[in-house]
């Protein structure tokens, strides 16, 4: 059979010779390997002080974006919910009333917008589907919670604050 990689090694079932039988050379070889590892660079990050950088394509928690004037971009078209393979997104649309023009950009907006972070697979399809550039995936991840309902993120959790707060993730749950 042709192998995918040529790294496969056939199992050696020959009986052990004398040097293999007395174990000691192999043990000493192993000791040498572990001794070398004593001085190797440690792979650990000291987590709270030192954070591992995310890769540039990392997809984390979602945010709902606003435009330059601070109005919500989302028009509750539902394309993100349709695109979502995990069916994690639900929303309810509402019509913009007169006098709310500074809050919502279009005539229609999402009155309720929920993402279930337990269902979400962070594929980023919602981001691609959105015609209004309203939803984005950030570089944070959902913090732990004691209850399932804590993982259902509502609009208040997802919407980035306005004006933007410096040095604080918009979606951080306090």
């Amino acid at each position: 059979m042709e192998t995918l990689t040529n790294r496969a090694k056939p199992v050696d079932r020959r009986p052990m010779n004398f040097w293999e039988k007395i174990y000691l050379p192999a043990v000493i070889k192993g000791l040498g390997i572990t001794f070398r590892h004593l001085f190797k660079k440690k792979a650990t990050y000291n987590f709270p002080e030192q954070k591992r950088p995310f890769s540039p394509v990392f997809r984390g928690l979602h945010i709902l974006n606003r435009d330059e004037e601070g109005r919500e971009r989302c028009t509750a078209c539902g394309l993100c919910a349709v695109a979502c393979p995990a069916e994690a997104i639900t929303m309810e649309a509402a019509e913009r009333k007169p006098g709310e023009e500074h809050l919502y950009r279009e005539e229609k907006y999402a009155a309720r917008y929920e993402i279930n972070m337990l269902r979400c697979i962070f594929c980023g399809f919602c981001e691609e589907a959105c015609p209004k550039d309203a939803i984005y995936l950030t570089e944070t991840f959902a913090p732990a919670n004691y209850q399932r309902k804590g993982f259902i993120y509502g609009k208040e959790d997802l919407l980035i604050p306005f004006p933007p707060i410096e040095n604080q993730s918009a979606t951080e749950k306090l």
Partner: protein
Amino acid sequence: MFLEISAFLVIEKLILVAAILGISLFIAMYSTYAERKLAAFIQDRRGPNRAGIFGILQPLADGGKLFFKEEIIPEYANKFLFILGPALFMITACMTSAVVPWGSTLHIAGRDISLQVADVNIGILYVFGVVSLGVYGIMIGGWASNNKYSLLGTIRAASQIISYELAMGLSLIALLMITGSLSLKDIVEQQSHGVWYIVYQPIGFLIFLVCAFAECNRTPFDLAECDSELVMGFHTEYSSMKLGFYLFAEYINMFISSAVMVTLYFGGYNFPGMHSLHVSPNMLTILGVIAFFIKIFIFLFFFIWVRWTVPRFRYDQLMKLGWKMLIPLAILNLLITGALMLYPHH
């Protein structure tokens, strides 16, 4: 009469006993830290580094945690024996230190103070006897837990320790043929002017070392507790400080067996070039003690190093190694030693 003792001697020995116990407990405490740190380094991790600088207070934190854990005694356990087990294991672990010569003599206030608690003329046999009693702590604790895993661990521990004691004893006999004395003090003094006995007894030392690993229940011979198969073997049911005693006694055993190996094969408190140093005898004794402890630390490092390198033996491999390899090898070593000793005379 050998029981005529002066008050000075009693005080002196009591101080010495307290000091040795304190030091061995302290070293055992920090061997747990060293174990965790070295394990981490070997596996490219950092190890405990939160309690104090470099995690130096970690053993205290561990001890505190064990003290505050809930004390659980299983309902169907034999209560008296359940408590007796860890206590016995701890006592036997500490007892061996009595005959180890920790240093030569100190001259303080006109008195010669020997840095050895008891120079009995059967020193090695005493060590051997105490080691053979160590198994009772395991057996009693494991049986009293009334748990199948504990009983299996107990049986493994007991048969392992008995099997390896034989090879250990045989390897020692070859050494004793050279020394002609069972007193550890004499053995160290003999190495003071000649070469260390490792040169005369390399095979004997190797057998002794392997057996020491087995007697201490250290990986690769930790079948008594093997966490992955027997869920800690004989101390499955133990919690709180009783568990702490079992774990801690293992490190004391390691420390003491390192001390015994250094004494027997690596010259004890002697160090190269000690006779050409021009210092006062007291200074020389202190340097000797330091040399002794450095050698012990090297052995402790070796114990830990091997643990994180070699995987556990299978049970039949363990028995095969003990009975079919080490014992014949030890007997062969005995015969060769005897032949070489008789050869110059004929």
